[in-house]
Every structure is written in structure tokens, then in C-alpha cells.
């Protein structure tokens, strides 16, 4: 056997046996498809009341991170959750996808336990990311976090209402069912002071990070439809992760903000909701 053939064979076997990189999943989805998963999320929503956070101050803060890729060391996630808990104006935190970096239930169990122990007063909302569906892991996401297509309403003492929407883009598409659900929800835009949309997969391909290149985006048709939907309804903030670096754009008057990860460039986003929505990055 030629050395080149031996190298290819070894590399293939190494990748195929890896518990971090789902090689076959790069080409074929062997877990649930987006449509089936969204159907499961919406079914769970139907059986449980939507989350409403009442009595919030008129100005409050939300802490957002993504791509935590839990691999044993939970220090940075704990610091993120502690920072939100210690902020007197902190209302809740968000982990915007990619909890896991390997197969199995451990990362999901770990995050669930961290949220329970560090955010006793407040809560943490979670979306699913592409790594969370590798190796058919969505069953563990479902077990601990139940849904990734849902909305949370915040009612402030001054009578304002804000809407936080959470989406599943784990397969690089939101799917027909979820887009329909989103459109329906955005029809009620005028009832809310602010609408903040969260999804894992970044819409844009404006810069490169060696560790996530080449990572996929949404297909073009869907990407343009989503951009238009956001500007039509004047969404206050669109939050994304996936590419492990910080990025901000404004298109159609809508700010699109990407959070970094908690490993290579550890930081999170602090979003302030008052008369206007503003945000800043905090390094860890």
C-alpha cells in the first residue's frame, strides 16, 4: 500500500471513530430533520404554558453567550451565569446553541445542573446548535431543555411588553414549519416594545475564523427571506452565534449581533432593554 493511501485510510478511520466530529452527519442527517424537531418543540409548547416574566423593571439586562462547547471545565460558564446573577438589573441569561462538543448526554446534564445551581433566582433560556444535534444528541437537549422553538414575554412594571423569540437552526435551516410559526408571531409585533430574536447559525459570512472554517450558513433563499422578515417587522435585535467571534451589522434598520464562544475568544453580550435596546460585549 502506498504511503498516501495509508494516510487517507488512517485519517478516515480516525475521523470516523472520533466522538467530537460527526463525519457522516456532515453529509447526511441521521438524527431528526429540522421539520420533525420543530414539530416536537411545538408539541411541547402546546402542552406547557408559555413563559411570561412579570414585574420586570422598565430597564433590565439580559446576558447572552453561545458556543460554550462544554468539555469538562465549566469555569467560564459559571462566571457568565454568576455575572448575570450578581447584576441587580439582570433578568435572565441566554445560551444560544452549541452546548456540546462531543457525543453523549454529559454536556447537557452539566449545563442543566449549572443553571439550577447558579441561577436560582433568575433563569437561563437555551437554543439548540449544530453540535447539539451531532450523534443524534437532540434527544439529550430535549430531555434537559425540552424545546428550542419558543417565545418568552417580559412584562415590565411600567406596562411595556418585550418578546424574546428562540429558534432552532441546528441543521442550517429553520424549516418551513418554524418560519411559518415565526411569521405568525411577528404579526403581533405592535403589541411589544421590543422583539429580540435568537438563533444559533450566523446569517452572514463576513469574516473568517480558522477554527470554524468552513462552517455553513443558511441557504440563500432562506437567508434573504429571514432578513426581509426581520426588517419588515423592525425586530429590535437579532442574536446569533456559530462562528466563534464577535460581529455586528445593521441591515434594514435591524442590528444583527454575533456572540463569540467561551473558549478561544471568551466573551458574552450584555443586552440592556429600556426605551431602546443597546448591548455591549464583556470579556471573560
Amino acid at each position, binding site marked *: 500500500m502506498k504511503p498516501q493511501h495509508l494516510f487517507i485510510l488512517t485519517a478516515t478511520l480516525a475521523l470516523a471513530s472520533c466522538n467530537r466530529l460527526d463525519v457522516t452527519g*456532515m453529509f*447526511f442527517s441521521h438524527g431528526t430533520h429540522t*421539520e420533525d424537531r420543530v414539530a416536537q418543540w411545538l408539541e411541547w409548547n402546546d402542552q406547557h404554558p408559555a413563559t411570561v416574566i412579570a414585574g420586570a423593571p422598565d430597564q433590565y439586562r439580559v446576558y447572552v453567550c453561545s458556543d460554550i462547547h462544554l468539555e469538562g471545565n465549566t469555569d467560564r460558564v459559571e462566571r457568565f451565569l454568576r455575572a448575570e446573577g450578581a447584576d441587580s438589573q439582570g433578568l435572565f441569561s441566554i445560551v444560544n446553541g452549541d452546548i456540546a462538543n462531543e457525543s453523549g448526554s454529559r454536556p447537557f446534564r452539566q449545563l442543566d445542573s449549572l443553571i439550577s445551581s447558579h441561577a436560582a433566582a433568575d433563569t437561563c433560556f437555551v437554543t439548540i446548535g449544530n453540535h447539539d444535534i451531532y450523534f443524534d444528541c437532540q434527544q439529550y437537549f430535549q430531555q434537559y431543555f425540552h424545546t428550542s422553538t419558543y417565545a418568552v414575554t417580559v412584562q415590565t412594571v411600567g406596562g411595556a411588553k418585550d418578546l424574546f423569540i428562540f429558534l432552532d437552526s441546528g*441543521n442550517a*435551516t429553520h424549516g418551513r414549519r418554524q418560519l411559518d410559526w415565526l411569521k405568525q408571531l411577528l404579526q403581533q409585533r405592535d403589541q411589544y416594545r421590543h422583539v429580540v430574536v435568537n438563533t444559533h447559525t450566523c446569517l452572514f459570512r463576513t469574516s473568517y475564523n480558522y477554527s470554524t472554517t468552513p*462552517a455553513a450558513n443558511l441557504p440563500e433563499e432562506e437567508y434573504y427571506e429571514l*432578513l426581509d422578515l426581520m426588517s419588515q417587522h423592525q425586530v429590535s435585535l437579532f442574536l446569533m452565534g456559530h462562528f466563534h467571534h464577535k460581529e455586528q451589522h445593521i*441591515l*434594514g*434598520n435591524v442590528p444583527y449581533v454575533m456572540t463569540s464562544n467561551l473558549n478561544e475568544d471568551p466573551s458574552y453580550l450584555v443586552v440592556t432593554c429600556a426605551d431602546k435596546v443597546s448591548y455591549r460585549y464583556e470579556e471573560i
Partner: protein
Amino acid sequence: MKKALIPLLLLFLSVPAANSQEPISKSHPLTLTGYGFYDFHYATGDNGGGVLVLDWQASPSFKLGIGAEYASSNRIAARLTGQATLLTTPIGQRLTLENSYLWRHFPSLNLQEFTGALQVGWHARHLNLHLGLCNRYIAELIQRSNGGQGTVFEPMNVMFAIEGWWYNQLVPRQWNIGLRWSNYNDFVIERVANWFFSAKALYQLPEYTHLYAEIGIHPVGSLNLTASYDGWFLHLGAIRTF
């Protein structure tokens, strides 16, 4: 030099996404390609339309092409392509450099997109290879005209196409079939990890006319995302040389 000029310069150094079937003789320097298409996307629905591309072999080593597309999903597009042949081997294999500019307008979305691309191509007996880069501006023009920030610049997206033909494509034949793997087609340039897989066929009629068909799938997600089915497409048309 102002920083803003750098992307502009890169843009002018960039794109063409030329179709690779073009045996044009000196006596027939014009080629007109026309096809209708049907595109189905699972998330966003279906989409039909038509494409017309006119190529002019201006000299043995330079070809200029203009094209237009209309899609029922409320998309119109235009493309300008220049292709220079850098090298031709005795058996007719060619090394090419292609530069194209693609403009797309989505009237219902208030969005416009302008892409510039530069590609190197190798056209052999059974194989066409293309590799290049493209830069893209996405603009929300109404927002721009109101003085707002309405532009996103996506630089250095890799474009590739690997196309294999069953029979030697450098020799005229009655028919030929091929397979193609790429991240772009005539009027759509996806990001590098969003692929098109397709099968193509050409059938020669008399009088310098070929019938052309292409059918393919367009999965979403690959490489760093688990892949899921998104859609399929069909192109049917003809290529005529004058």
C-alpha cells in the same frame, strides 16, 4: 489609501461564474443559451423562471458573456462575464481565467446584491474544474438612501465546481452526460459549504443546436453542520451557436 477602497478594488479583481459548455468555432462566434428552471426549497417554497445567456467569442482567447435571469420568487438578475484562455494544449485542453459580475435584485425584499468573482478554470477531455473567490455586497438600498447602515460585505467566498463528462467533451458528439458538484450555478453563488449536486445532459440537434438538461439537489448544512435536505432543481433548455 482609504480603507473603503480596498474592498472595492478586491471587487473589481473578482468573479465570473461562467458555464463551461462552449465549443464555439471562429465561423460561429455567438452562443445563445436559454433555459427554464424550477427550484424547490423546503423552507421557502418553490420558484420557477428563465435564463438567457449570450456569449461572444471576441477572439480565439477571449470570450465575453452577458446573461439575465427572471425568477418567480420575485428575483431578477444580470451577469457580465469575461473569460480569457491562458493556455491551450495540442489536444484542446484549456486553462482559463474568468471574471464576472453578478447583480441580483429582490424587489419584494428591498434587497440588492452585487457580486464580483475571479476564477481559474481547467477544461480537459472529461473534466472541468473551477476554483475562485468572490466578494459580495448585500444592500438594503432604501435604508442606504436614508443615510442608514444598510450594507453587508461578504469577502473572499470560495467558489468551486468539479464537473465530469462521460465522453470526451473536446470532440463533437451527438450526446454527453455529466455530473457536477459545486457551490454555484449561473445566477446563484452559495457560501462555500452549501452545495449543489447535479446530473447534466447535452444532446446535439442539427444546425448547431444542443438540448440541455440538468437536475440536482441542494442540501442545507454540510461540513460543520449536520446536513439536512433542502431542495431540488431542474433546468431544461437549449444552446444555439450562430
